[in-house]
């Protein structure tokens, strides 16, 4: 017997749901709207919502000043690259933790997470010196390496929780059939783990995309991603809300659209083992 959903109840929740959704989304919507205003209109009171002279001026300005394409490419290479590298390192580790756990497995996991607690600012100078000596400053490779290490604990942990949900009997059955370790991973495990891997990947791309400390402090002209692009529009002398809004819209748009399209995968996987 399914619970009957009355239309009235559905209507109430439609109103509540949409109001909350609108409220939460509003700052982004406001940024988007502001990006089409002139600087003067952007700070006007009373605020103008829809009925102002829409202009593309800010986008032209941003386009003429910065190489948006280069920044986007850097962002993509860095976030995707670091995520993929992270997965390559993390999949075997998480697999081992999930299927041959020892009494130290939990400790290792927690230790991994705790490496994320080091305040980045505190280690900037040591890392800058290392990067300088290895010639990694302002290189995509260097950033991929750093972001991989930053997100690796999260990746390992997410994967671990997915892998653990895969019943061990299946593996044993495969082993009885004489499957090698490689085959076991490729034919048995991977298909079952794909949803988990997909959402881990998505989440980490988002985290890497928005990482704004190392990406700003270790780059100059060549490897600078969108975070640096934003930093060239925030807080100059003079009014800047409209231009910043345009730049922000351009910086957020790719990841937001990707996030929206892959929402199902992201949501399905975003459990961190929180669901039994």
């Amino acid at each position, binding site marked *: 017997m399914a619970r009957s959903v009355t239309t009235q109840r559905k209507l109430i929740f439609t109103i509540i749901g949409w109001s909350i959704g609108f409220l939460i989304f509003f700052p982004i919507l406001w940024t988007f709207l502001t990006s089409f205003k002139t600087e003067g209109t952007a700070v006007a009171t009373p605020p103008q919502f829809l009925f102002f002279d829409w202009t593309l001026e800010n986008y032209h300005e941003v386009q003429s000043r910065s190489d948006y394409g280069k920044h986007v490419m850097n962002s993509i290479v860095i976030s995707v690259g670091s995520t993929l590298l992270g997965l390559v390192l993390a999949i075997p580790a998480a697999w081992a933790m999930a299927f041959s756990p020892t009494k130290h497995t939990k400790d290792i996991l927690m230790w991994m997470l705790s490496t994320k607690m080091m305040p980045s600012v505190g280690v900037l100078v040591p890392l800058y010196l290392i990067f300088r000596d290895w010639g990694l400053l302002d290189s995509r490779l260097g950033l991929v390496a750093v972001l991989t290490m930053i997100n690796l604990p999260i990746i390992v942990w997410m994967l671990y929780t997915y892998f653990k949900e895969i019943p061990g009997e299946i593996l044993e059955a495969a082993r009885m059939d004489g499957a090698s370790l490689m085959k076991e991973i490729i034919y048995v495990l991977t298909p079952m783990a794909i949803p988990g891997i997909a959402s881990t990947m998505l989440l980490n791309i988002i985290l890497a995309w928005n990482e704004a400390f190392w990406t700003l402090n270790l780059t100059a002209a060549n490897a600078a991603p969108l975070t640096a692009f934003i930093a060239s*529009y925030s807080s100059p002398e003079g009014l800047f809300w409209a231009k910043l809004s345009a730049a922000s819209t351009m910086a957020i748009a790719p990841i937001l659209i990707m996030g929206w399209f892959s929402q199902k995968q992201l949501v399905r996987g975003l459990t961190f083992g929180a669901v039994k």
Partner: protein
Amino acid sequence: MFKRTLLLGAVSVAAMVSFAHAETLTIATVNNGDMVRMQKLTEDFTKKNPDIQLEWVTLEENILRQRVTTDIATKGGQYDVMTIGTYEVPIWAKQGWLLPLDGLGADYDKADLLPSISDAVSVDGKLYASPFYGESAMVMYRKDLAEKAGVTIPEKPTWDQIADAAKKMTDKSTETYGICLRGKAGWGENMALLTATANSFGARWFDEKWTPQFDQPEWKKALTFYVDLMKEAGPAGASSNGFNENLALFQTGKCGIWIDATVAASFVTNPKESKVADKVGYALFPTGGVENHGNWLWAWNLGIPAGTKKAEAAQKFVSWATDKAYTELVASKEGWANVPPGTRTSLYANPEYQKAAPFAKITLEAMTAANTSKPTVKPVPYTGGQFVAIPEFQGLGTAVGQQFSAALAGSVTVDQALQSAQALTTREMTKGGYIK
């Protein structure tokens, strides 16, 4: 044998040529309007110097500062030209981090630089960075509101006259606030204004033995005056307003008086952005009992790190961006009102500029009045103006700024703020080895 040498020579010449072709300068700069304009005019430079390519790294002021400082101090070598303030130049030059600029070419005309600016970027008579644009501080006010309130602001006002006018111009029912001043904590935000204000009240940061002076009556007078005035005639939220927030308030017609950097004048008179473009009057930075107009002086300059391998090309660029021809280039493309102000005497003698920039005269006066080698009436062991030119000042100024911003917000009293400022400054100066 000869043939071989020739061949080798040819190869190396070819190598050199291709090397010269590949020369790329990486320029770090702040995202203010004048620099953005420079970036857009790059083509003029690359046309004249086809063998040099320019890569721009344009960043917000705070991030730029942390980037270039980390890089130059660790000899990271990421940039060939850096945009730095008058605060950094003397400190860095003394460390030998900056290349002395002696190859700027015959057209550069060093003698044309405003003396106060030239002093601020030179150490022992050598130029270490070339000023791109400069500023002092002054009073900007709404002539219409002053008239309505029946007050006049003289060209050399005192703080009492400013306070009186501000109070009369305030009308909170129409959201008109008599005075807008910086309140957001930061060494380059509220402390720029407050240090200059304190200078004009006869106060100083340190005595000759580097003992902090916040326990002295001059500081108390200056800070009390500021807090009281802002409470009575300032806008809501003043404790988080910096330059930009006040600019937005002034441009939207919410401030009667705004005392800030002279570059603001070109923004508030720009009819495209400002509602009050034709109503702005100007006056010098106020005095508070001593003959001192605050000694606010700032310039953004182009410097070249000592380690660069492209010194020659870098100097070529610096010279292009800061000589007189550049001013004319901007004027021809964007009009005289948009040329970078505050670096050259010739600009202020130019009738076309005077016509385009009604604030030119007062800006020049303010800049000439500023004396960075003797910022305060009482003797001090430091140079500076609205800042103290020691490496510790960024941190120190920001920490003290937090205290003063709290006093403005009303969460501590003026006395408590001064006490904490005194205590934390003494601590830091002891740690830094100034106080033995």
